[in-house]
């Protein structure tokens, strides 16, 4: 039917390398989420702090992360910081770029979630003698994370997808990087990227599925 000669064999021979790449992709996505959540919580606290300076930092971060392309952000982390003599490896550039993006989006989600938590919760905690920090970490935050769980799952999927942007900072060990390097040598573009696409698809499905299982275990109330 097609007068294109598929060379699936050749592409499949690269499967082990690509699967290794998939592991790196997962690793980056997971780490970037862990950093992203931590930073997002910090930004959320900044925005709640009432301190003008801190909330300006948080707002700037959130708005830049949400209003510029992720590709741009990752490129900036590598070559932008590079201009100031801060040199990050491709791996770190990609990781930090994605974490930056994650943090911005998650902070916004957290803000929405916080609105859904009545401030009587904080009052109740404070009147038991808890400090405002204790009230936030022990009472407000767990509830916030639950409400924001679905957006967090979505962001995790985004994190997986964003690893594909690493090539612009010379990242070559993640799934996309491995695939594009293979492609640059053998030019079996369709076959190689079709396999990568399937792996990506399975990865994201695995993420959403395990998130659902995790939610069932985590939130029993």
């Amino acid at each position, binding site marked *: 039917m097609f007068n294109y000669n598929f060379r699936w064999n050749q592409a499949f021979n690269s499967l082990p390398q690509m699967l290794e790449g998939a592991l790196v992709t997962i690793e980056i996505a997971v780490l970037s989420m862990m950093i992203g959540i931590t930073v997002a919580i910090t930004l959320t606290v900044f925005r709640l702090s009432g301190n003008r300076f801190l909330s300006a930092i948080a707002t700037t971060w959130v708005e830049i992360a949400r209003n510029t392309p992720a590709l741009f952000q990752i490129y900036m982390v590598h070559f932008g910081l590079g201009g100031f003599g801060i040199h990050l490896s491709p791996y770190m550039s990609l990781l930090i770029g994605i974490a930056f993006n994650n943090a911005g989006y998650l902070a916004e989600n957290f803000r929405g979630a916080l609105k859904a938590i009545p401030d009587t919760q904080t*009052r*109740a905690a404070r*009147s038991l*003698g*808890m400090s405002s920090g204790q009230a936030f970490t022990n009472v407000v935050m767990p*509830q916030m994370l639950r409400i924001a769980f679905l957006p967090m799952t979505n962001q995790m999927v985004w994190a997986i997808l964003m690893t594909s942007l690493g090539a612009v900072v010379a990242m070559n060990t993640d799934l996309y990087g491995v695939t594009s390097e293979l492609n640059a040598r053998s030019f079996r573009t369709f076959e190689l990227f079709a396999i990568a696409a399937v792996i990506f698809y399975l990865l994201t499905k695995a993420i959403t599925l395990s998130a659902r299982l995790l939610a069932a275990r985590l939130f029993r*109330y």
Partner: protein
Amino acid sequence: MIEIENVRKSFGPLEVLKGINLTVPRGEVLTVIGGSGSGKSTLLTCINGLEPIDSGKILVDGIEVHAKSTDLNKLRQKIGIVFQQWNAFPHLTVLENVMLAQVKVLKRSKAEAGAEAEKQLKHVGLGDKLSVYPSRLSGGQQQRMAIARALAMSPDYMLFDEVTSALDPQLVGEVLDTLRMLASEGMTMICVTHEMKFAREVSDRVAFFHKGVMAEIAPPEELFDAPKDPELRQFLAATH
């Protein structure tokens, strides 16, 4: 002893407390009644320092609540408070709800806190609900849990803000019974309530608030049966 000296408090242009003077000695059960918006809740939240005041002084066991040097978190351990809106922490089981502040604030060990929590929960009749999440509790059970949570901090004073008014009528009784029990055990309490029968029965004194002023304070028989303040008379007529 709680001493309130000429306390004034405004929200923006609205003066909510217009110079309140009140002393509640240890062991007393004081009930506060009054119309909606008269400043009852505000007074309670000022006593444990959740709200700042504009002028005047509040002393709890001689410590000035609103002094800069006061460690509010420490002070609040002395003063339990239960609000009208149920505010169980929904992500924690009943037992964990009662343990949390003990562990975090009093630095009790988990075992110790757990034992205390269990004791207090049994005390308010929730001994069989320890590992249940609050969403499974009725409103009355949630309020009793909140009382146990406050009691577990071994407070010297308890403040109750209309703890029964968001409850279905059939659940009111169980919560009032819990309050009666506390009163009979000698706890110093300030109860804001609309339950006149309850007020008459347990109070040592009853205070009537009207538009930010404590218009009358007297033992229950006197206040209910021979009200002097005309507003109080009107108020009592409306609630009967």
